[in-house]
């Protein structure tokens, strides 16, 4: 049978990479950052130092973080282009979620470029990173932009969990889809609240 020419596999890979490793990474990232609540600036500095000293960290960053995100983002932009959104006609929540998944994809992309440029490439020393971040966040405009970026990424991820579990056929019937919908919304609120809390905490270091 001729099934060579199909984007089936590439779509599944796009979906899987978003959870493993990208989703796992975002959870780890938020977890480590929440060290600011337990020991403030010193704990945070230790965490950054520990992370930077993990053996083969650069290789790991490239293979586990950079390549999957770049692939997911490029193919994702193609998926964004393919849709013809119609939320004004069909105002159901899932349709909005579909639209938001695409809007947050673009915001997350812009945010990530900025975030990685400032805090990974332009600055690399723990104390410098913290003071740059602290100064930037004290500007209300940047604080709001950061909140938008972080919440976009988290909405994209949590709503993505819903999409992922359906795309892989894990969740099938109406009842489980409905429960899952509430779970991912709750997860958005929890992770979102935590992340905004972290930003607030760093602002007032």
């Amino acid at each position: 049978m001729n099934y060579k020419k199909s984007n089936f596999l590439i779509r599944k890979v796009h979906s899987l990479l978003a959870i493993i490793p990208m989703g796992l990474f975002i959870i780890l990232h938020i977890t480590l950052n929440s060290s600011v609540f337990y020991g403030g600036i010193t704990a945070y500095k230790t965490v950054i130092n520990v992370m930077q000293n993990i053996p083969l960290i650069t290789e790991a960053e490239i293979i586990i973080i950079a390549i999957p995100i770049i692939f997911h983002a490029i193919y994702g932009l193609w998926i964004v282009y393919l849709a013809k959104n119609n939320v004004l006609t069909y105002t159901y929540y899932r349709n909005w979620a579909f639209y938001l998944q695409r809007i947050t994809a673009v915001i997350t992309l812009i945010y990530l470029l900025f975030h990685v440029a400032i805090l990974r490439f332009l600055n690399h020393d723990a104390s410098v990173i913290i003071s740059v971040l602290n100064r930037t966040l004290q500007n209300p405009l940047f604080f709001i932009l950061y909140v938008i970026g972080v919440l976009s990424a988290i909405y994209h991820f949590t709503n993505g969990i819903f999409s992922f579990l359906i795309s892989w056929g894990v969740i099938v019937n109406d009842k489980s889809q409905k429960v899952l919908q509430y779970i991912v919304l709750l997860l958005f609120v929890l992770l979102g609240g935590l992340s905004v809390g972290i930003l607030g905490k760093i602002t007032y270091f």
Partner: protein
Amino acid sequence: MENRHIKLKIKRQDSPDSLPWWEEFCIPYKPNMNIVSVLMEIRKNPVNSKGEKTNPVVWECNCLEEVCGACSMLINGIPKQACASLIDKIYEKTGFEKKIVLEPLKKFPVIRDLTIDRHSMFDNLKRIKAWVSVDGSFAIGRGPRFAEREQKWAYVISRCMTCGCCQEACPNVNPKSNFIGPSAIAQVRLFNTHPIGAMHKEIRLNALMSNGGIQECGNAQNCRKVCPKEIPLTTHIAALNRDTVKYSIWRWFSE
């Protein structure tokens, strides 16, 4: 009662290649009318609301009881069957004598006025072999029975009338994408569950996994909301996501 009117704004198009234009109509109100009977009034007396004589509005219909799918159109922006859209029900929502807007579905080529060409949907059904193959040159005896448990939900899928409402509402069905759309996916579920149909399961799964197949679904789930036959399309899509994933793994290792 006598002086009440039904006001309509209809998107018209003379031929597949010509540009669309709007025309308004005003016809006397009677209780219990539906969009089809209103359009019939226009056909009887093709005069627009300015009092000018015009060509009667062209539309398609057959069954008049929401089982054929031919009279699908956008009624106040939402895809529905004209026959099943009662004027009084519409007014309950919008208010009496509020202008009703009729347009042809946007995801299909217009033939004339409200008549569209749903060919693409029938082509999709051919692509996924939405039938049970039993024809042969000799009798092969009785086939296996359809289990009652499965009959119950499979019957609901068989009510699909290829009306196009789900295609219309899906953001991933559009000229940029080649997505097969929700209804054909649900039909795969039906024929892959049917005991005889299941004998060609892999052919349908392969078709669903080819370009433009089930992987293009992005879970906007509008199909589920607009389907007039209340087919739980999103459940069937998820179930076939499961089947195609399993099958692709099996195909990788075992075929």
